[in-house]
């Protein structure tokens, strides 16, 4: 097993043992080296001492030529096994005595060498002077020491070093197995916790902290990480549950198409949309496509295999045939997820049943058409009716006027009064019919919407109202006004009605009417503010109804069609109209005009 795969526990022990082993080895090596370096010197020293003793003891033997005595002195060297040879030479350099006796005479030098010790390879040998008294040289002592002793000694040292090493390693092993736990235990705790987390997916377990060192910090960080994961896990679970709830409630399913593996996965909500029992399935794409209605099959297959639209999103609808034979409309929306090399890896999205919605849409469309038709009929009827009513009315009016002109002096006062009422009623009816006609023309005779400068329109309105403005001494002011899509004639009618009302319903003070516009996101909001008599809030709705008048005919003239017309025009442009007012405080009428022409225009 490579070192890096060895458990930390053993790695630590190995490190401790390795370190102590190296230390012991170096220490032993140093001692051994020192011994090796000094051993020769010490051997020579002890050899010299020994030699001096022997030499001193041999003086008399040499002086008085006593060979036996000399041999006896030399034989004392038996106690020193490392001395392999010794000899005495007399003052003339002749071999006098030797040790051991068994050694051949020829093994000794014929004459002594110079004084001093030297290493001759096998032995450490040397010559010492034998001196009596003051430098009285009597002869020479030869001593040869075996180096075997040195080797034996060094071997002993090596064994000793090995023993020390062994003991150190054993002690290091015992100590390290005691010590390593301080480091390996917290790490093992963390790693076992990590294992438990990954094996069981249980994020609630925690590693036990043993200290405040780096391992403690690691443990804390690890536990903190688990806290976060646990929280995230819970959040994901909850959000998953919410998503499921939403999917279940909206009956929307999700699907994933793996193009590489040619299979599609439908979740528990998507599966029932194909007429299958609830439950997630992964089906072969070719099987799946068989479920699609034959008329749509080729298109859907082309779309899906092609990876949807190039833009990365996919939207389509198709029909499926349920196992029971029912045909259902499905609508899918998805996203293309590209893998490496921008190849389409898979698509995922939602799917929903749109059968009911489609039916409702069809029903709604039919209803709308019907409504439009009846509305048109009604408008036509109103127009035709009011138009055709004019003719007989005109006859009534002209003949009554003729009657008044020709027979006025032949009739009594009562008859003249009656004729006067008839004429008045006819002309009032005439005005009502005209108003009705005008109202119906808002939609029947309306012009297409075009870019219209509201400022210019206001100028026209000022011109049209010159007389009224002059009579009332009114002041018409405005902020800069925008250009909007509108029917210029109708916009003129609208503004003229609102401004005219502002002048008409004055309370004695000089009328001041101010027109302004505020831009919103999709529309312009216009306001026409006056300082007139104001309107009580209870009438805010009523004033926009046809022929509704709040005042006597004598007090303020008019048929009561103005604001109804205004409402009609604003609604035709796709906007709305309302007001803010209180009695004697003046009124402000608001209306909106969309920035883009809406469908209301015909």
């Amino acid at each position, binding site marked *: 097993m490579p070192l890096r795969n060895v458990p930390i526990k053993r790695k630590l022990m190995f490190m401790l043992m390795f370190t102590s082993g190296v230390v012991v080895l170096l220490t032993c090596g140093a001692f051994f080296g020192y011994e090796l370096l000094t051993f020769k010197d010490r051997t020579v020293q002890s050899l010299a001492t020994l030699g001096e003793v022997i030499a*001193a*003891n041999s*003086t*008399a*033997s040499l*002086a*008085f*030529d*006593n*060979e036996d*005595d000399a041999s006896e002195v030399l034989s004392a060297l038996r106690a020193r096994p490392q001395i392999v040879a010794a000899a005495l030479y007399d003052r003339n350099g002749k071999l006098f005595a030797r040790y051991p006796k068994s050694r051949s005479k020829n093994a000794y030098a014929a004459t002594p060498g110079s004084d001093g010790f030297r290493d001759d390879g096998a032995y450490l040998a040397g010559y010492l002077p034998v001196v*009596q*008294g*003051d430098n*009285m040289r009597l002869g020479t002592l030869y001593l040869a020491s075996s180096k075997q002793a040195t080797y034996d000694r060094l071997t002993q040292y090596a064994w000793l070093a090995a023993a020390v090493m062994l003991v150190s390693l054993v002690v290091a092993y015992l100590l390290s197995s005691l010590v390593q736990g301080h480091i390996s235990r917290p790490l093992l705790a963390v790693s076992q916790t990590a294992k438990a987390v990954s094996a069981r997916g249980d994020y609630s377990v925690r590693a036990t902290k043993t200290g405040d060192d780096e391992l403690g910090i690691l443990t804390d960080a690890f536990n903190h990480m688990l806290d976060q994961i646990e929280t995230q896990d819970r959040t994901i679970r909850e959000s998953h549950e919410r998503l499921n709830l939403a999917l279940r409630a909206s009956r929307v399913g999700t699907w994933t198409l793996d193009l590489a593996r040619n299979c599609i996965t439908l979740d528990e909500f998507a599966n029932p949309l194909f007429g299958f029992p609830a439950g997630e399935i992964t089906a072969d794409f070719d099987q799946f496509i068989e479920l699609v209605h034959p008329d749509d099959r080729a298109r859907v297959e082309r779309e899906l295999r092609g990876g949807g639209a190039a833009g990365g999103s996919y939207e389509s609808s198709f029909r499926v045939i349920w196992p029971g034979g029912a045909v259902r409309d499905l609508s899918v929306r998805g996203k293309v997820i590209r893998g490496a090399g921008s190849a389409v890896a898979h698509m995922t999205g939602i799917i929903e049943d749109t059968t009911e919605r489609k039916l409702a849409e069809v029903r709604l469309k039919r209803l709308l058409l019907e409504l439009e038709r009846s509305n048109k009929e009604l408008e036509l009827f109103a127009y035709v009716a009011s138009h055709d009513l004019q003719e007989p009315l005109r006859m009534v009016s002209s003949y009554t006027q003729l009657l008044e002109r020709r027979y006025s002096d032949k009739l009594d006062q009562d008859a003249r009064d009656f004729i006067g009422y008839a004429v008045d009623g006819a002309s009032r009816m005439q005005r009502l019919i005209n108003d009705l006609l005008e109202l119906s023309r808002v939609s029947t005779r309306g012009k297409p919407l075009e870019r219209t400068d509201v400022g210019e329109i206001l100028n026209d309105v000022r011109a049209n109202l010159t007389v009224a403005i002059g009579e009332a001494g009114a002041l018409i002011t405005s902020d800069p006004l925008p250009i909007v899509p509108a029917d210029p004639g109708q916009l003129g009618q609208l503004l003229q009605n609102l401004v005219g009302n502002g002048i008409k319903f004055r309370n004695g003070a000089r009328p001041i009417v101010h027109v302004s516009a505020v831009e919103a996101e999709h529309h312009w909001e216009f306001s026409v503010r006056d300082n007139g008599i104001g309107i009580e809030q209870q009438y805010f709705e009523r004033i926009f109804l046809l022929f509704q008048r709040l005042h006597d005919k004598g007090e303020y003239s008019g048929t009561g069609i103005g604001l109804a017309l205004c409402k009609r025009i604003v609604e035709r442009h796709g906007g709305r109209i309302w007001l803010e007012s209180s009695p004697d405080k003046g009124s402000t009428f608001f209306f909106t005009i969309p920035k883009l022409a809406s469908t209301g225009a015909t």
Partner: protein
Amino acid sequence: MVRALVLVLGLASILGLSVSAQGATPSREYQVKAVFLFNFAQFVEWPPAAFSEENAPLAICVLGDDPFGSYLDDVVRGEQVNSRRLTVQRFRSPDDIKGCQVLFVSKSQNRNLEKALAAVKGMDALTVSDADDFAERGGMIQLETQNGKIRLRINVGAAKSASLTISSKLLRSAEIVASRGD
């Protein structure tokens, strides 16, 4: 006949039975004995009273016929023992003896040996001789020839009575004897 002659001559040469005249080179045996006499000076300690003055030379005296010839003079020439020069003196009669530290009594004095020893008593001289039973007769060191080797026989008592200290090393290589009658 010839063989016997060679043997006799051989023996004569080994034993040094010299008949050579004074001044001639002594036999091998007496050469060795001359060296021994010199060596004794190194293994024996004399009391200070033995010398007439502090730096007085150490005298080696020969009593009677001198068997060494000039050889003994050659041996001691230029040598020093304990910073003392060495001299050689020769006496014919024991009565003449004076100022000796080592006295070699020649075999020629065998008969009046006792007289000679008595003469040096109180002189603290080391008495040496190759006369038979010299040690037993009261001499200190007897040089005895055994198997062609010269061996020492030492009368320690005699030396002690003369206040001389003989080195244990010298004693070890010698045969210790006592005076006859002791």
